[in-house]
């Protein structure tokens, strides 16, 4: 039985970060893209909490995680509002088809 240590958390967080970015880059649907963003934020959160827990760094990390959760919520709210607005104007939420502004 391997004891769960800092490294495991870090690996998980790294994967989350990578998957999050992957989702941001590849998903067509704006909602899914935003979920990718959430993944990235949560990857960072895992880091914060893990570092805070496994080192003698004090509580700053956990504090940060709380802030991030709050901000993520706010960001999601705003993002969803914008996506809604996009749906109203374009009739779809396909991020890669919204490219009128370019060059």
């Amino acid at each position, binding site marked *: 039985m391997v004891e769960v240590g800092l490294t495991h958390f870090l690996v998980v967080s790294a994967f989350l970060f990578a998957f999050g*970015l992957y989702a*941001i*880059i*590849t998903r067509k649907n704006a909602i899914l*893209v935003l979920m990718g963003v959430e993944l990235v934020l949560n990857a960072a959160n895992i880091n914060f909490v893990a570092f805070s827990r496994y080192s003698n760094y004090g509580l700053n990390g956990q504090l940060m995680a709380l802030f991030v959760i709050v901000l993520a919520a706010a960001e999601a709210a705003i993002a969803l509002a914008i996506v809604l607005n996009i749906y109203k104007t374009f009739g779809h939420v396909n*991020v*890669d088809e*919204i*490219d*009128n*502004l*370019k*060059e």
Partner: protein
Amino acid sequence: MSESSLISLAVTILLLPLVGFFIVLLFGKRFEHLYKLEVGIISVALLLSIYAGFVKLTSYVNDTIIAQFTWIDLGNVPTIGHLTVNLGIMIDNVTIIMLFVVTLISALVHYFSIAYMKGDIRFSRYFAYLGIFTFSMLGIVIADNLLMIYIFWELVGLSSYLLIGFWYEKKSASDAGMKAFLTNRIGDIGMFIGILILFTNYHTFSFTEIFNHISNGVVPFGSNGWLTAAGILVFMGAIGKSAQMPLHVWLPDAMEGPTPVSALIHAATMVAAGVYLVARIFAMLTADAMLVIAVVGAVTSIFAASIALTQNDIKKVLAYSTVSQLGYMVMALGVGAYTFAFFHLVTHAFFKGLLFLGSGSVIHSMHHEQDMRNMGGLKRKMPITYITFLIATLAISGIPFTSGFLSKDGLLAGTWAFGNLTGHYLIPIIGFTVALMTAFYMFRLVIMTFHGEPRNQHKYDHAHESPKLMTIPLIILASLSIFIFYTPNPVAPADGWFYNWVKAPQTVVPEEARFEFMKSESHEIEGTVNNDSHGGSGSGSATITHSEMYEHAMHAVHYPAMILSIILAGLGILFAFLMYHWKKIDADKLAEKLKPLYNLSYNKWYVDEIYSFLFIERLLDFSRFISWFDATIVDGIVNYSATFTRGVANITGWFDTYIVDGLVNFTAFVSGFVGLSFRKMQTGKVQTYIVYVVFSVIIILLVLRPF
């Protein structure tokens, strides 16, 4: 009369025509008779210069009067010291004689022109131009330094340009003016370089100061070679102005100008300025330089004479004859016959002026017909013109009792002596050959024009003797072509006053650069032996004017030369009569037999064509090339080297297309990894952007290598 008042007199003579020029030019259109002012002014100038000559020759005959003033003061120049550019006036006997010759011929031409130019639309302008010419020519004459000569040298070039192209509506006239100016400029560049060599070394333009430096043993850049070069380069100015080979081409064309102008400028005075210039720098000419000058003169004289043999245009014949005679004078200076060269300059001025005015008279009466083949028998219609013309012809042919005989004989003797002393016999041989040819073509001209039957009856019927205003100048000049004005003894020019007034200056060239016969050792040896009464040294005079050895040699060949030249002149005249008067020899058949030679001569040795092909066309090609090069390559390189400038070339119209293309290339180069273009990168798809960001992070990591 003091020296300073003589100087002021000379300045007055100089400035009078300039005043005339300005007044007539500015107001000539409004006041029709203003030309009379110019004529009056030139007459006053003539009288003044006669007076000046009288004063100089009576009171200061052996003096050289110099007055200088500072023209430009360059202050205390580093390494040189106080540097000024001075101008000044020098009056010696040569000056005073030239003053007289120039003002006299100028005045006569003025009178002549009143009749000749009557009715021309730019009548008063013409007199204004004559005024500026006279001014410039007098400037050359009285200058005491090379710079001033150069200044007036260019100014006579200007007046020559203006007068040759006087009838500028004719393209040939304006072409000829341009040709004259440009051809002269070529020579002037050389002259200017020569002057620069002297100035660089001596920081002065003044003749006397330069000569002083040289006689003190200071040669340009420490080498006699440079002294020779300076001499030859300054002589290049003379090549241009005096129409020597290879820059002679402008003078025949210059006959496009009004005939009195040809008489004044292109026969009597301006073209002689070259000879005058060489005479001025005579003292500093090295042996090599003199030899070059002699050869140029000799080649020119025979070359031009050979062309004159076959020309049919009366003025062209005279023009080539002028070139030939100028070659004579230059040759004479080259061989050291200073006095006779100058003597010939003066006599030639009178009789060639006369010939041109005479031909003007003929042309005038024939209603501007210049082709001799349309003339003939005119001596009955125009007796005065004929007689005066004949006198001049005799003079130029070197027949005894004429002025030309005196000068030419001395000149030929000089070349012969030179041949004897140095072994360069080709020069005297050419000299004598030219004498024969001169007599021939001049009489050919006289016969074709005045003798025989009229070939164009219509024109002949309308011909008439010219008005007095034209004939009187002819008569005056004709009388000046008689020996008596120069010497009491018609066969011994050395007996005359001229010989005493004009003496060759003492050479200042270092010993080793002189001719063998001019070295002072030989001079000492000869000096003890000979004290000839003909010697120009002027017994008792302190200044030794020329190599005694040369004088002696000249004296030795004086009579043989005289006899030979008379014989040759006679032969020439005989041939002319045989061919054109008595028609014993058919000229046409002869021409047919010597077809190639005849063609060469008739077509002036194709010099114009060769120049045109070799230089003018090539120059124009080259200039077109440069222009193309400029517009395409230089501009192109500058534009294209920086890609962004490329857009400028296309700013209007397809600016964007091009700038974009340019940018695509440029940015591809700059950004390397990013891809083809920034613009393409901006796809509008936000996810693509994030991909870029992710890759950038990786690349930055790789670039910074933090491991």
